[in-house]
């Protein structure tokens, strides 16, 4: 920056580090801010019990959001995760009761999720339609299937050991937290360190350029939707095992919660830019707000208001670093 240039008031003259950090790490900054605030506000907050609880409770959503990152980065939308979750839940519950085999039932959920996700991918690529509409339609179909499997009723699982996955512990930490950690580590690596991940970014950034660069864009899309379905299935296995019952409404609204968390994390809705850790951070930022409201004596009718304002704050923080050119 030379000294002689006239200054235009209010305009950034030079590049400042902290702003860039704000732009890239808005979600982390807010996550830390909320954590610090809650730690001071309530002694019950910063206890390992409470923190592990938060992790445990939100493991299914975080798993779905982590895999959903691939979908969004590839420039697509998956609005069917909640329905896939429902189908996987009721199927697992039904199988557990029918066969009495816990392993079979709990493995069936991810497998079914994978299959339904792959179907999404096939529909999107074969019909060449935008995934928003395709998965909206498939979500209707899937949730109807979930209703038909159960007849709308509740399937209560009494099979011995069925709740082990959802409620068990290992080294004092709930199993779902371990699963979450494993899934996130794996997906993080898959997106940022592998050829497949590279192709996902390229597909979302510029599908035509990707195709011309030899990326098999259709295959990438199918894989990405399969992954999202698989994750919904894993999440369903955890959740169904935790509550020991399957019902078709399970997971309702999760698809939008996951997308909101992904974008809140900083992954671009236009595709091409994003990271798995961001989505996980997004999930837990929203979860912390909810936890704070439960722990502190706030009027719960304000929870949505505060969540909305904090989302806007995250976004505004990210925008500060991005001045107009």
């Amino acid at each position, binding site marked *: 920056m030379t000294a002689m240039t006239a200054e235009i008031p209010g305009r950034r003259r030079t590049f400042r580090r902290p702003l860039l950090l704000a732009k890239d790490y808005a979600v982390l900054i807010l996550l830390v801010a909320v954590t610090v605030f809650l730690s001071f506000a309530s002694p019950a907050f910063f206890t390992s019990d409470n923190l592990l609880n938060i992790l445990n409770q939100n493991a299914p959503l975080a798993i779905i959001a982590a895999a959903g990152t691939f979908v969004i980065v590839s420039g697509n939308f998956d609005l069917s995760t909640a329905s896939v979750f429902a189908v996987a839940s009721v199927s697992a519950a039904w199988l557990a009761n029918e066969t009495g085999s816990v392993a079979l039932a709990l493995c069936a959920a991810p497998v079914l999720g994978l299959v339904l996700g792959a179907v999404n991918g096939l529909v999107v690529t074969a019909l060449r339609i935008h995934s928003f509409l395709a998965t909206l339609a498939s979500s209707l179909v899937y949730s109807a299937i979930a209703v038909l499997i159960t007849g709308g*009723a509740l399937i209560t699982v009494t099979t011995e050991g069925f709740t082990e996955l959802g409620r068990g512990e290992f080294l004092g930490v709930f199993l779902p937290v371990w699963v979450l950690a494993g899934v996130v580590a794996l997906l993080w690596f898959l997106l940022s360190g592998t050829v497949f991940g590279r192709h996902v970014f390229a597909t979302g950034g510029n599908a035509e350029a990707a195709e011309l660069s030899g990326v098999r864009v259709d295959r990438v899309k199918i894989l990405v939707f399969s992954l999202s379905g698989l994750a919904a299935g894993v999440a369903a296995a955890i959740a169904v095992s935790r*509550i*020991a019952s399957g019902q078709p409404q399970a997971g309702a609204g999760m698809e939008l919660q996951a997308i909101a968390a992904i974008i809140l994390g900083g992954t671009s809705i236009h595709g091409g830019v994003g990271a798995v850790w961001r989505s996980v951070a997004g999930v837990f930022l929203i979860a912390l707000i*909810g936890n704070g409201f439960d722990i502190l004596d706030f009027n719960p009718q304000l929870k949505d208001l505060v969540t909305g304002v904090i989302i806007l704050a995250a976004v505004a923080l990210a925008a500060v670093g991005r001045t107009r050119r």
Partner: protein
Amino acid sequence: NASGSGGDGSVEGGAYKVAVLAASAQNGYNQAVYDGVVEGAKDLGLEVDAKILDGGFDATTQLSQLQTAATSGEYDGVIVVPHDGPSLTAGFPMADDLPVVTVLNPIGPDIDAMEPQVEGVVSTVAVPPTAAAERQAEDVVEHCADQEGPCKVMLLVGNLSSPLDVARRDAYQSVLEREDGIEIVSTLEGNYDRDQSLSTVANAVQSHRDVDVILSNADQMTLGAEVALTNAGIDPSSVYLTGGGGTTEALQAVREGRWAADYVNFPVSMGAAAMEQLANALGDKPVEPHVDADTVGPEGVEPYADADTLAGVEDFTGEWNG
């Protein structure tokens, strides 16, 4: 008595701290239960600090809240209005064994079993949904018995992907289908929403203008159905309209003869009853494991109400509106 089984709160503040886990804090019914808890505590002469938590009609959220309430050490007891009773099972046994009273729905795998199903739930203030629905349907049977020719019934139920409502529909069907003179002409989903019920009934009425009975499990839906009938040029009082909930508007409609009957709930009294049972548990007094919610209402108010039963209780205008 305040130091009964006490968590930290009771020792320090001398008051019980109670978490009221509402299925949604933004819903009239849940709000009424909460009001009942507060009133009930007052009637018992207890100092109670009751905090309402918003489940946002979301099973996971509510489960989180239950677990948070258990681990935070903030509360002495919990009163829940489960959004989804079966999924709350996962919260039990609770980390700190707080006494839990559930209102409206049981916690546990069986939605019709009122005795506590999981360790930690001390009392259930509710009516089995199937029993209530059967009772509503029996009133319809009675009405149809007086009628000549086939009796055409429309079922208007909340949401057929919810096990509770499926159980209600099944109960309606099992009772009504036993009768020869009764024909169920359509089964509709009203989603506890006036506008959606208005639409769906308006549609169905197009092909069943001769409908005799609309049997609904929620007042909001019956209110929508009523508008639909009016729009279609059918006098609502010529149809046997019945709802569920006992809202102010519903009771007024029954009294005015627009509706034939209503199944009355007493959310405020249920809240008070729940508080009473919770206080018993905290005070190491005997606890009733099942409080029949049909019996908690004010003196003389019959839960399965029609114009006749309401005639005797002029000043009962319902415990909530929603």
